[in-house]
């Protein structure tokens, strides 16, 4: 359906409203990225780009990342700008919808986690915890397109 893309991670099929998420992010990208002055660090791409991982663990890495954004990132991204906050809400709710689908796959053993995804996620958490929570959350939100590009 329009905007929705179905992703096949092995036996796990998940529909993600990529168009809604992308348009929401495009609307806030310049504002959010401008709040992140640190060019030399990336939460998702440091030290290795998401793209460099093997595809076996794609489902588990995706599951980890959607949990990461819903549980840790969005709640620390409140701004003084109502419009930005509404867009973040739209993205957060779209992420929540996908997180629930991935959770189902995981519970039904259709989204198994290997060593690579665990290591990758631990690196992302280490990058995140290397900054104060608001800077880390804003940087992570500003890197949403890195996740979306990798997903697609």
């Amino acid at each position, binding site marked *: *359906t*329009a*905007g*929705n893309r179905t992703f096949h991670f092995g036996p796990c099929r998940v*529909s993600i*409203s990529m168009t*809604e998420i992308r348009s*929401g992010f495009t609307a806030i990208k310049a504002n959010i990225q401008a709040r992140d002055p640190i060019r030399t660090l990336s939460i998702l791409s440091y030290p290795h780009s998401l793209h460099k991982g093997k595809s076996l663990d794609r489902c588990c890495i995706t599951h980890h990342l959607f949990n990461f954004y*819903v*549980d840790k990132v*969005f*709640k620390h991204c409140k701004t003084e700008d*109502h*419009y930005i*906050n*509404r867009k973040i*809400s*739209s*993205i*957060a*709710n*779209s*992420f*929540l*919808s996908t997180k629930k689908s991935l959770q189902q796959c995981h519970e039904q053993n259709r989204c198994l986690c290997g060593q690579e995804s665990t290591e990758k996620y631990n690196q992302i958490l280490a990058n995140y915890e290397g900054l104060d929570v608001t800077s880390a959350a804003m940087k992570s939100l500003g890197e949403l397109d890195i996740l979306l590009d990798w997903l697609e």
Partner: protein
Amino acid sequence: EDALLPVPQNISILSTNMKHFLTWSPVIVQGETVRYSVEFQGEYERDYANESWIPICECSLITVTVCNITEDISATVAYNLRVRTELGARRSEWGTLKASLTPPLMKVTADGYHLLVELEDMGPAVQFCVVYWKKGQESWMQQKVVKDVSSVVHLDSMEAGADYCVKAQTYVEAINRSSSFSQTQCVRVQGDMSMWMVTALISS
């Protein structure tokens, strides 16, 4: 003076022209201009952000009884919406609503052998599931998902002299709900002589 203002009633969602609008009945206070404010809460806010509500600034302290919520209820989760009355420092309690959907307006035409459909523009978050079949062959229904309704949509090529029927329903991912189907519309394809040929002969 400090009596609570009435809560807005008949709160509902109207989907038209590719947009979603929250509407409610006006609250009358003699000799006064009543204003309204609208907020929304997605499942994320309910479950992860302390049940917070987000104001829609375009619909804060407005005097009209309609608010465009299209962009705010775009995700495939449940949403709550609420509106209250405001008059000076006085406020009403919130009137709250969960989101729902109406079937699309539709126009079916036959252009020569081609079955075409035009659908009402109901907002960027709205898609359409169009079902069509040859009359008498209800078991052979075809389905097409239509995302972009800004123009005439080509459904299929038809056999001469047959009747074809079409119905459609809306689906909004934001609230993960479908409407009921619209009324069925049927059209007949001209016999062997194509429509244009007929038109050409008449107009020449």
